[in-house]
């Protein structure tokens, strides 16, 4: 018969190397574990040369988004290490700031530069480390200059990020107590002392300006 020899060839000869390369590619892609050359050989048509096919495949994937890598005495395909960032998906979850944090932040904003002891005095409760850390981490407050008082405590001031977030040009744009009162946010009673009342006078406002200036030093 005339058709017999080609049939015989296809049965007993190894496929062309390009075909073998496709095979090892598919095997490596689909396998749940790295595959040894021996395993490949067992799965490929008789006479195949997986080592040679692997050499071709490796070259083909050089510089690609996927690499052919050696794992022990086996082979595997992996995404290129420099593209690891693509394997992450950031989900942003919005959460309200805790009451302690927003109060602490408000005090820093209105009284800056302010020490932790001063914050505690104003809030009437101690300020947890976590709250301050959170605000520092969010880059809404930062350390200011040390106070010239005994112990030279560090102070906190608000940052440019804070101003950006709240749409303020400077901390002095924060509404004063009088405005808070006018907006119905405050009871119509005079605060116990001058304290943070922005309306009290220019002296204080000037002080704040100075502080703000300091924020942008460094």
């Amino acid at each position, binding site marked *: 018969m005339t058709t017999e020899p080609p049939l015989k060839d296809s049965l007993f000869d190894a496929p062309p190397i390009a075909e073998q390369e496709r095979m090892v590619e598919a095997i490596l892609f*689909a396998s749940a574990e790295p595959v040894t050359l021996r395993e490949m050989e067992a799965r490929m048509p008789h006479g195949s040369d997986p080592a040679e096919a692997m050499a071709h495949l490796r070259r083909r994937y050089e510089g690609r988004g996927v690499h052919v890598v050696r794992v022990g005495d086996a082979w595997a395909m992996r995404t290129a290490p420099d593209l690891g960032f693509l394997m992450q998906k950031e*989900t942003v979850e919005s959460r*309200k700031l805790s009451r302690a944090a927003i109060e602490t932040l408000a005090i820093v904003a209105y009284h800056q530069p302010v020490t932790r002891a001063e914050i505690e005095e104003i809030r009437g409760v101690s300020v947890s480390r976590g709250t301050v850390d959170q605000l520092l981490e969010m880059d809404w407050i930062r350390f200011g200059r040390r106070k010239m008082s005994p112990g030279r405590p560090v102070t906190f001031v608000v940052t440019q990020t804070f101003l950006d977030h709240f749409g303020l040009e400077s901390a002095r744009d924060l509404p004063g107590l009088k405005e808070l009162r006018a907006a119905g946010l405050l009871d119509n009673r005079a*605060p*116990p002392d001058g304290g943070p009342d922005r309306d009290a006078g220019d002296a204080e406002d000037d002080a704040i300006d100075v502080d703000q200036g300091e924020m942008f030093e460094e």
Partner: protein
Amino acid sequence: MSDTGFEEDRPSVADRLAAEALIVDVDGFEGPLDLLLTLSRTQKVDLRRISVLALAQQYLAFVERAKALRIELAADYLVMAAWLAFLKSRLLLPPDPTDEGPSAEELAAHLAFQLERLQAMRDAAARLMARDRLGRDVFARGIPEDVARLRQVRYSASLLDLMQAYARIRTRDEFRPFVMDRDAVFTMEQALERLRGLVGHTPDWTDLANYLPEGWAADPMRRRSATASTFAASLELVREGRLEMRQSDTFARIELRPRRPQ
């Protein structure tokens, strides 16, 4: 079905044999339509050219055989049998001009359509299942890399939140209940007790200031409190007749001495 007078009504031997073979497998059919489709194959024609009349006869023969063999057929097989018997008679009789509604031919055509459609869906299902299928012929990535989900919490606060928080703190200050800071207060009871112990040890006129408890003179707050309570305690002892007081001038020193027995 026993007496219809039509030659076509009598099931052929072949039909009866086929029906018997089918009856053995009656549970294998998915209802009357499935059975009809199977029966239709015996006609060996395109489903579009099938003889619904012949099919109806085959079906009725099947039901007859089942009855003869005392095989219980599900209700829907019997409903179909009744309907096919009706259709058959309509197909055989000349159309009644007073009869409204679809003609027998229309009903037969729809049944043929149903059979063709069911067969088409079966063929389609077979072609679908014969495709290269994922996990059988085609494979997905064996070691998928999980996409790490980095959950980032973004805290938010509005300017209003900030102002409200500040307002809350300030108003809280104003409404703080009045509490005496006890550590700076020297009560009259304390002063009285102290003074009672001291009176008599110093017979001469002595400045009230000297009677203040130790350590209370330095701090102004404490000095004020101690002075006031000691003065009040002195007045009480004067009232009791145990002490005399004098002050030479306004804002002059206040002096005390034990009252001398008269």
